[in-house]
């Protein structure tokens, strides 16, 4: 079961020295349950801010956010968050980090460690399960964080540039895995990225935000990721892929 996201009239100003800094400006956004929406935009345009508001970490200055029919009042286990910077707990080994969600839900030890191992295998970290997070590379930490969020089994997954720190190969592998997972589970995913290629390749719908204060300036359905019959290389070779990529590029540059 997945949930939709409904953002209406959202605007936000950060209070800073010398007055209010507008970060987001009149965002209206409807994300259907089971969509994989990618969000691109120049640095500092407010992507993270929008994501943190949907996650319930920050209350918006104006406007409303509704997830699965319930207004967002704070964080909750229905919305998993993959942070831009990995936030694993150094006092737990990687396996127990991943098992934290099930643990908080009261799932027994053997079962939750089993769940953790399954998701660690999925992100290719089975060998690192017994290590502490600070003994992992940045990319490995990010993969562990993704495993932790998936093990929490949220209806909505909010991902903030999760693959920014990864090498090209790992990145492509995880992109494919995300698609497989999305097709299998039908989770609603909001995926922020700097990479136009990634946005177009992954998204069933691509959003582009304007520079600060952020507004949504492009909102386009993209057919590629929903089609499981095409291999990644075939998708990227499609003329339509190049055309969409070009349109997104133009939208970001403006």
């Amino acid at each position: 079961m997945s949930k939709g996201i409904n953002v209406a009239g959202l605007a936000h100003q950060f209070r800073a020295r010398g007055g209010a800094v507008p970060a987001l400006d009149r965002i209206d956004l409807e994300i259907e349950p089971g969509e994989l929406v990618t969000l691109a935009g120049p640095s500092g345009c407010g992507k993270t801010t929008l994501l943190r508001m949907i996650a319930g970490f920050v209350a918006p200055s104006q406007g409303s956010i509704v997830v699965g029919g319930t207004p967002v009042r704070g964080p909750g286990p229905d919305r998993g968050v993959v942070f831009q910077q990995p936030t694993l707990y150094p006092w737990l080994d990687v396996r127990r980090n991943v098992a934290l969600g099930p643990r908080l839900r009261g799932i027994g030890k053997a079962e939750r460690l089993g769940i953790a191992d399954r998701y660690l295998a999925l992100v290719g970290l089975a060998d690192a399960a017994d290590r502490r997070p600070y003994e992992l590379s940045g990319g490995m930490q990010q993969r562990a964080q993704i495993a932790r969020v998936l093990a929490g089994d949220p209806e909505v997954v909010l991902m903030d540039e999760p693959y920014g720190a990864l090498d090209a190969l790992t990145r492509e592998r995880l992109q494919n895995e995300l698609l497989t997972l999305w097709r299998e589970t039908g989770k609603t995913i909001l995926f922020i990225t700097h990479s136009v290629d990634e946005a177009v390749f992954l998204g069933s719908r691509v959003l582009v935000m304007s520079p600060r204060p952020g507004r949504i300036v492009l909102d386009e359905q993209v057919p590629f990721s929903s089609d499981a019959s095409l291999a990644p290389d075939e998708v990227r070779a499609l003329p339509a892929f190049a055309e969409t990529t070009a349109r997104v590029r133009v939208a970001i540059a403006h």
Partner: protein
Amino acid sequence: MSTTHVQTTTHGVRRWAGLAVSLGVLVAVWWLVAAADLVEPGYLTPTPKEVWDAFVRANTYHPIGGGVDRVVRGEEHYFLWEHLLVSLRRIGLGLLLGAAVGVPLGLVMGTVRWVGDLVGPYVDFLRSLPPLAYIGFLVAWFGIYDTSKVWLLVLAAFPPITLATINGVRGVREDQLNAARSLGASGLQLTTQVVLPAALPDILSGLRVAVGFAWTTVVAAELVNGLPGIGGLAYLSGTQNKIALSVACILVIGLTAIALDAVIRTIERLVVPWRGKA
């Protein structure tokens, strides 16, 4: 990896060698000064040998001397190590109770803003008082026996532990809390699963400070009815002109304090291996 290991080892060897040499020089100088009898009367400057003898006497049954044919047990009916153990027990009890008060208090004060604002000034007030200022008061309340001493140690130990805990709680990264909330952590789970372990390095630092406080305080507290107790023995032997014994006590106190600190640092390394890494 291997080069750093080698470097650390040679560094360690050099450090210990340096320490041994400086210690040798120190003892030699001490011996010379004591033997030269520069200070009158001579018992004021016991030689290392005399201090050692006093130390051994204090840990054994020995004749009382002075022509009297009687054997006594250690000093003041207790062996020196028993005096030390009694003081350590007081310190341990004081620290334990101090931590039992200080850690939860610090957690609440650091988490709930108005409690911190309300209680903070009192903890600061208590912390800035020298414990000796209120020992008379405690003796009046709890008598001259152990209860007042343990209370004194609790009062000396808990403010640094509380303040360190608050510091640790306030230093928890916002997103570490958010991550747990997004995984479904309740308020209590957040405290036990995230805030407490995240604050652990600071709590242990606070404990180290508290141990230092407790040592200074216990020796002072034992000035009044402090026997058995290593501080009491150090003081009493001094007033009775048993300077060699007094010096032996001082050395034992100092060495034990250093050993205790090393123990806590080892515990730190074992319990918070991530310190400075994450």
